[in-house]
């Protein structure tokens, strides 16, 4: 009798479980315990909240995540829900790996612009958070050197910023006045430095057509940016491409650098070191307004998914304020909505990182949303490194334009 009961229970559990459809999800953050715990909590809540779907999480190290997705796509093994870096999303959407999201009307209305991934007029991905960059500075240092503290309404102009750097360098207290972060090769270059170019009035590509970089990346404005960029290193105001990785991590905290261009993920460590003296300043206005990069990792649905309703249901579930807040608490990143920011200690009114929400909301510009971005980013990185190392500015920018244009041509315009 007992046996029979046990069998019945097992059968019951089996049939209940059988009614649920399994969905697979891939995530880029293997090795990061805080992110993992938060994501698992959301998945568990989702699995318990309804009886149609069960999410299975698989994690990958960030360095090999993109390659894993490409390999899976080529062999037809993509998961249902994929995690995608904002600027890469158009490439995957265009390649046919992703399908547009199908969320309820107005679900994304309050989201930071950088957290919503749009390509070809459709939303393909949404992020639970965004990241923002600020100029890390110390009030005491700026005041001692008679430098005005800029605001979002009145950021530093090019002349002001440049004069401030000269003053700080001349003070002799610092190894370098400004640390842009040349040690962080890779995506940091386009993410952190293309906003400077855009503020000068140039861009990585002509965003009116997305078919050529001519004029945008080698025009007068871009040339002005390039010359200024090169002069930073010629005048020894900033450490060059051979900057030590460890100096990048701790140089500002150790007092080697007066100003540091850095992301909000580094903010808590700097706060620990300097407390109230620390300032998160907006980007300088080089003529076209202060600009910082936007878009971080986001969730989307694979084109090959057999259960897009389930995948969309999970994403819609995950973008509730409480989960945005939980992620922000765990990682220090900016919650994607104002209402979620309000319930986190760091980003609520009066919180130590509150300013980042405004910085992101007011200044952010996404990197060019085109499938060609992947190549453009590499070309841009090499051009900026070469210019910093003393290459001829105009020739380097011309070569970058040619390479970007050749790539666009090779791809029949990337669908534009």
């Amino acid at each position, binding site marked *: 009798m007992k046996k029979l009961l046990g069998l019945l229970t097992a059968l019951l559990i089996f049939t209940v479980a059988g009614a649920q459809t399994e969905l697979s999800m891939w995530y880029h953050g293997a090795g990061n315990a805080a992110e993992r715990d938060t994501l698992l909590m959301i998945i568990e809540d989702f699995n318990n909240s309804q009886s149609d779907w069960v999410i299975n999480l698989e994690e990958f190290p960030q360095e090999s995540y993109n*390659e894993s997705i*490409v390999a899976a*796509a*080529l062999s037809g093994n993509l998961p249902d829900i994929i995690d995608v870096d904002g600027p890469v999303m158009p*490439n995957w959407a*265009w*390649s*046919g*790996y992703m399908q547009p999201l199908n969320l309820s009307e107005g679900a994304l209305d309050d989201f930071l612009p950088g957290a919503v991934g749009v390509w070809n007029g459709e939303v393909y991905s949404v992020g639970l958070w965004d990241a923002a960059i600020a100029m890390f500075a110390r009030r005491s240092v700026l005041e001692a050197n008679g430098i005005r503290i800029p605001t979002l309404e009145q950021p530093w102009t090019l002349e002001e910023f440049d004069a401030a750097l000269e003053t700080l360098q001349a003070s002799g207290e610092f190894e370098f006045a400004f640390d842009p972060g040349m040690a962080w*090769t890779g995506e940091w270059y386009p993410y952190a430095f293309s906003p400077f170019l855009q503020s000068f009035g140039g861009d990585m590509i002509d965003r009116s057509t997305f078919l050529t970089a001519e004029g945008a990346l080698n025009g007068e404005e871009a040339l002005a940016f390039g010359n200024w960029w090169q002069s930073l290193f010629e005048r020894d105001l900033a450490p*060059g*491409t*051979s900057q*030590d990785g460890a100096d990048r991590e701790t140089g500002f905290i150790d007092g080697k650098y007066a100003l540091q261009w850095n992301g909000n993920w580094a903010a808590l460590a700097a706060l620990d070191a300097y407390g109230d003296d620390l300032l998160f300043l907006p980007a300088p206005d080089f003529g076209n307004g202060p600009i910082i990069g936007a878009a971080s990792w986001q969730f989307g649905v694979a084109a090959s998914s057999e259960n897009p309703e389930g995948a969309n249901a999970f994403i819609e579930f995950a973008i509730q304020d409480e989960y945005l807040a939980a992620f922000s608490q765990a990682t220090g990143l900016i919650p994607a909505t104002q209402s979620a920011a309000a319930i986190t200690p760091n980003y609520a009114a009066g919180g130590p990182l509150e300013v980042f929400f405004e910085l992101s909301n007011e200044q952010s510009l996404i990197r060019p949303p085109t499938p060609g971005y*992947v*190549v453009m980013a*590499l070309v841009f990185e*090499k051009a900026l*490194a*070469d210019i910093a*190392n*003393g*290459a001829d500015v*105009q*020739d380097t920018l*011309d*070569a970058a334009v*040619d390479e970007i244009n*050749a*790539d666009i041509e*090779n*791809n*029949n315009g990337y669908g534009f």
Partner: protein
Amino acid sequence: MFDARTKATLSSAPKTSRGNRKNKEAFAGWLMAAPAIILLLTFLIVPFIFAFGLSLTNQRLISPNPTEYVGLRNYKRLLNVRFFTLKPLVDAEGNPVLDEEGQISYPRLRNFTRNNPDYPQLNGLREFKSWQVGKNRLVLLASDAVFFRALLNTIIFVIVVAPLQAGFALLLALLVNQRLRGVNVFRMIYFMPVVISMVVVSMLWRFIYDGNDGLLNSLLSAVSFGAFQPVDWLGSPQTALGSIIAMSVWQGVGFHMVIWLSGLQTIPFVLYEAASIAGANGWQKLRYVTWPGLRNTAVLILIVITMQSFSLYTQVQVMTRGGPLDSTQAIVFQAVQRGFEKQDIAGGSAISVLLFLIVLFISIMQSYLTREKR
């Protein structure tokens, strides 16, 4: 005439049985070679045929666009070069304009190479090298200056590394070939870098070459009592390639030492004894006994080092990523960067095919030059 006929009749008799044995032997031979042949076919020959095929298309790593045959376009883009004479800027009287430093001024090249309808053949080309010829400047323009830089760097790398590595390895082999106590410890020490992964070695040498407080700078500064000014070894275009060469020589020298050692140990000891009896001194033994006995080993080592050096990649990827200012670009690095990072499989394949042809040509040349002259 008679000879030939007898030979024919003689050999015809046992033909069947010998033929059978021969067939059997041939079969066994093929069977034993099969694993290697299958592996070579699957992982080298078939992929190479694929690469050659892909290099004639516009294949992308990922793309919804269909693959199209484009002929030799990828090769033309890589290899298009042209000479162009740049005439100095002249003032109203036709004299060359001088800049502040008294140098002759030239018009910017981009006036000719960018959208100039008078010079359509120069469109999109970049300066690779230039020379002063009288008042004019002779410019070598290339459609892909980075590729030519990579080619040049790789050739310099091979030309420097091959003799250095072979020479140091021979020196070490001669040292550790002596019958001394504890010589195995030295053999192990010299061989150790070979066993460590190149990625790890490259990471370590990045710290050694660090421009501020790297081991090399500290060492040189200590040895010179502070007179030595720190050099940014990997960060300066003048020293970056040399630094990678020095580190590569160090890393590979142990491997070739072992090959030399095996060569040294095949030389019969009686030859040295005979030489001693004949009154030869140490140098004469080296010159007339050791060196001739190492001939075949030397040929092998030279060919192996040459081929290995052409595949320069890991050090560049980990230490410099081709920079600063393209001073450490390498062919394989470019092939990988284009094929995978920039998703241009066709372009990467074209570079691989060119590299294959270069290495093939050099190997054939080497085996021709070092053939046994009878």
